């Protein structure tokens, strides 16, 4: 990157479980609250923002280009341009890096980069047979034609396609995300109990962070539609009382016979949004602002879809080549916890000379990750993974923790359904 991207400040909503407290709010409701509050906390005039860029995976059918809907719901000027970006689970990061690219290209100076997802509101859809029937009905003119068309109807036409389920299935390799995690568990010999132990740690770390109030300054409390009787002030997911015995009781979800991945050691489906105000480093300096941190460099990399969970390894390797940084340079690391098996597989791939040789033609392993600096405040297994929002949350959570610890360089990375990875090098000064 030519110039660092200054991240002035960022906030997020509490994350809520699918069908839970936040389910009455749409993806645009969630993001609009974040955007309004980011502007209040940064005290930055909305008129001086060049564009709102929003990462979102399951784009709501009632809000095409959800970004523009968010802009207006958040009270941004009616002249605010707005675009929606999509890189599956990295969409929240894509919003940030797109802003960086626009700035580098001289298109603008100040951007709002947001990620949002309401997995509760992903619709069920009619299958192709019913869809074709509706199409034929539209063409049918006379009563006879209509009746004839209806004669073709069979009750099984009504079986819905569950949007969120197909969305989490790779249409090329045909595997559900959980099934790709099972492959990694076998490839890297990540046992069930290792996965459960990792999940337990995630819950305990997140619960501790929550209890210590470490998330308070990154969370915008949300009034809970549709009844608006309560405010959500913290994440719904973390379970301070989680234990190994409870995790061990769960049955494998994706491979019922020989599997190891359960709903306990995978991230839950989640609602939430996160966003930040970004600008070029020079602009921030000129305005006399003290940014939360900077994006120093980033990389996206791709690999086969059925091993998409290793995306962070590939993306980080590319980032290292691009920036000259080494894994040891990163003082704090976030690898998104899509699945415990997947994060543990990443750790092992990072440390494997063999993997480095085979995939990157390197003589040495990329490096080992000290578990003590990885996902220190827990991860998606506890907090949740609203797919479009997580990328933005990782950046905010990581930068705020780096500041608390007085650290300079951090890595935020995640795996991307379909076979990609993202890695962002972040700095506090």
């Amino acid at each position, binding site marked *: 990157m030519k110039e660092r991207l200054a991240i002035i400040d960022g906030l997020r909503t509490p994350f809520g479980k699918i069908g839970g407290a936040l389910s009455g709010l749409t993806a645009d409701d969630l993001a*609009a609250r974040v955007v309004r509050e980011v502007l209040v906390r940064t005290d930055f005039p909305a008129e001086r923002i060049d564009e709102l860029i929003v990462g979102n995976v399951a784009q709501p059918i009632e809000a095409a280009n959800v970004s523009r809907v968010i802009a207006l719901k958040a009270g941004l000027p009616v002249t605010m341009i707005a675009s929606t970006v999509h890189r599956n689970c990295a969409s929240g990061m894509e919003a940030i890096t797109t802003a960086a690219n626009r700035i580098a290209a001289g298109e603008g100076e100040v951007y709002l980069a947001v990620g949002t997802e309401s997995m509760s509101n992903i619709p069920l859809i009619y299958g192709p047979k019913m869809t074709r029937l509706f199409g034929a009905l539209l063409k049918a003119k006379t009563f006879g034609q209509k009746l004839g068309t209806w004669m073709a109807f069979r009750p099984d036409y009504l079986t819905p396609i569950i949007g969120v389920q197909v969305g989490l299935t790779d249409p090329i390799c045909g595997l559900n995300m959980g099934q790709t995690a099972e492959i990694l568990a076998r490839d890297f010999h990540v046992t069930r109990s290792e996965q459960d132990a990792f999940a337990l740690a995630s819950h305990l770390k997140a619960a501790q962070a929550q209890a210590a109030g470490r998330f308070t300054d990154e969370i915008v*409390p949300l009034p809970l539609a549709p009844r608006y009787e*309560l*405010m959500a002030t913290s994440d719904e997911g973390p379970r301070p009382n989680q234990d190994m015995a409870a995790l061990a009781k769960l049955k494998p979800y994706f491979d019922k016979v020989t599997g190891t991945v359960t709903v306990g050691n995978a991230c839950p489906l989640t609602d939430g949004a996160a966003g930040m105000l970004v600008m070029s480093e020079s602009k921030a300096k000129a305005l006399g602002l003290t940014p939360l941190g900077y994006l120093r460099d980033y990389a996206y990399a791709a690999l086969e879809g059925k091993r998409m969970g290793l995306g962070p390894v590939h993306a980080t390797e590319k980032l290292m080549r691009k920036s000259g940084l080494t894994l040891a340079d990163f003082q704090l690391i976030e690898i998104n916890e899509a699945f415990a098996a997947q994060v543990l597989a990443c750790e092992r791939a990072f440390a494997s000379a063999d993997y480095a040789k085979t995939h990157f033609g390197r003589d040495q392993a990329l490096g080992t990750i000290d578990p003590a600096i990885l996902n220190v405040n827990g991860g998606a297994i506890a907090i949740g993974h609203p797919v479009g929002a997580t990328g933005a949350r990782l950046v905010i959570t990581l930068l705020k923790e780096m500041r608390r610890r007085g650290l300079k360089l951090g890595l935020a990375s995640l795996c991307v359904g379909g076979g990609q990875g993202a890695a962002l090098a972040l700095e506090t000064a």
Partner: protein
Amino acid sequence: MADTIITPQDPADIGSGVIRRNHKPALSLSIDEEHVARVVFDLPDEKVNKFAAAVVGELNELIDLLIKRTDVRILVFSSAKKDVFIAGADIKEITNITIAADALAKARAGQQAFQRWSELPFPTLAVIDGACLGGGLEFAMACTYRLVTDAEKTSLGLPEVSLGIIPGWGGTQRLPRLVGPIQALEMILLSKQVNGPKALKIGLADACVARAFLDVELPALTTRIVTRDHLETLTAGRKPEGTSRIFEKNPFGRMFTWKKARSNLWKKARGMPAPFKALEVVRQTYGGALEAGLTREAEGFAEVAPTPECKCLIDCFFASEALRKADRAPAADGAKPMDVTQVAVLGAGVMGGGIAWLFADKGIPVRVKDIGWDAVAKAFHTAADYNNQLVKIRKLKPQEVGLRMARITGAIDYKGFQHSDLVVEAVVENLEIKKKVLAEVEAQVSETCLIVSNTSSLSITEMATALKHPERFVGMHFFNPVNRMPLIEVISGPQTSPQAVQAVAALARRLGKTAVVVKDCPGFLVNRILLPYMVEAAWMLQEGGDVLAIDAAIRSFGMPMGPFTLTDAVGIDVGTKVANVLAQGYGERMQVAPVLDVIAHDFKLLGAKAKKGFYIEDAKGRKSLNGDITLAVKKVRDQRRIAPRDIQADEILDRCLLIMVNEAARCLEEGIVAKAAFLDLAMVMGTGFPPQKGGPLHYADQLGLKTVIERLTRLHLRFGARFKPAALLVAKSQRGERFFPPNQPIT
């Protein structure tokens, strides 16, 4: 007039044939070479077109001229005013009607002119692009065809009953003929207005076009009418369809329609003579001959127009117009009133939440601060509740709720306050807390930010001492519930700047409310007059009066609810607290009836919010008398050795109403409010004082000030200082004056 017409025979003037008159005409006629006549209504020196008596005269002259013109193929009638077709008759002329004969003559004159118009030897077309109300719609219905536009301002209706009269120029006859009785009654009895597309749907209009395409659609329609091209499809929509047809086409259905309308009126317009009269006229004449119908209509009009109810309603109308103008008066220094684009509210209780809802509803982002998130949640809940009420009555689409809710943000600190143009303080009614909060918030906002307090009774003057810049501090008293109550009291303290008062009044209007500017005094205007009335009811209760009887007597006067039901609704704790504030401020005459304190403090009854006050509400929402009240009353009577006695309706009315009249006179005397008319309007809008009675001062006028003094003096002797006649009442009565002299319109 006929001699000035330029005939088409004169080649030089073909195409411009214009009628000219010596004085400025309201109606101008031109006839082009295609034999299309055009009449344009442009009332000189007015923003809107009105059917004043002079215009009706002009119309008759025009008809005299046109009736001979057999060459005219069609006449197109339109308005030159933006957004207004014809706003109605001239209401000022109605106020001058004092006897039935005048009213009859007035109705007849309009009816006859419109009837002649409808009998012109060629088709006429009304082009309605804007407000078309009352006499305007009655005229439009006398045209052969009506074209309406889809413009937002295009609105058709017969709002006469809201002024205490009934449509008197054919409205009760022609409207049911066009749209059927069910739809017609809704428009006539409930003053319901319809927009362009709805007018087409119900058959009131024959065509609805986009305002933007009026230039092409109007000639197309005139050509169609002239060439008689499928005219039957043009007017096909005039017949009512579907279920309404079933009700209208047979005697049983019709009987049901009348019955339904009547029971509806009992619910919505009790005590208002006009809607009942309008229903009577429609019921008696529907299905009969037009001539007979018009005669009955004119009689009906003459029966209501001279009544005091009608005068009071018209006074209310003029008072609200006058208030609107008062707010709009330009500032002394020519400065533009500040534009409020961002608001903060302190306190997330029912009032704070309601106020937040109101701003969000009007598109203004609002930040609500309270001390904790649980408290903040209450504001969102209130706002959501008000939105859901709108969704239920279909005034709001469900998908619009999210956008409105998104304009409300919550906070537990002062972040985001620095850009607010206005801060509304709505914290608990405690002077010390309010002063602390006000001082705190002033440190957080910009120099230009207006600070207002939504106190219902605490001293604005005293609160202002907490501020460094008291000139920007104003009282802005919203009434509960904010979504329903149309009034805001704007209270000016001794140091408040006139600009700040004007800005707050203008804002109140932008919020769709009526703003009455008052001076600071305990209770301000409305509560100062209303509380003694509520307390008087309590005095009567402890003397032996009956809760049900007192409430019933007051309801029969026309108040929407009796004093005890009102106290329950306000909250017995809140009401007693305010009553005590007034007692402190005004001394003996506002002394609180001991029974109220016993009920509030010893029995801890709260009122409707706890479903337990003077009345108990069960799970199904049914109300019955609370037995605890009897105990409380007994306790007070025992303590004070009061021997209970029966209190009759006359005494109830006199004591409840005259105590208000007396305090109202004092307020006027002290200059708390600028005009008697504003005071009465505030009482109508802020307390539900029956508009057909005009307000306490109108009521005093009707009784006669001499009678008022006599009765007050008697009450004074019996019950003490609180009934001592106000000096202004005495003076006015001695001079033989009234608060509202006849033939002196409210301005």
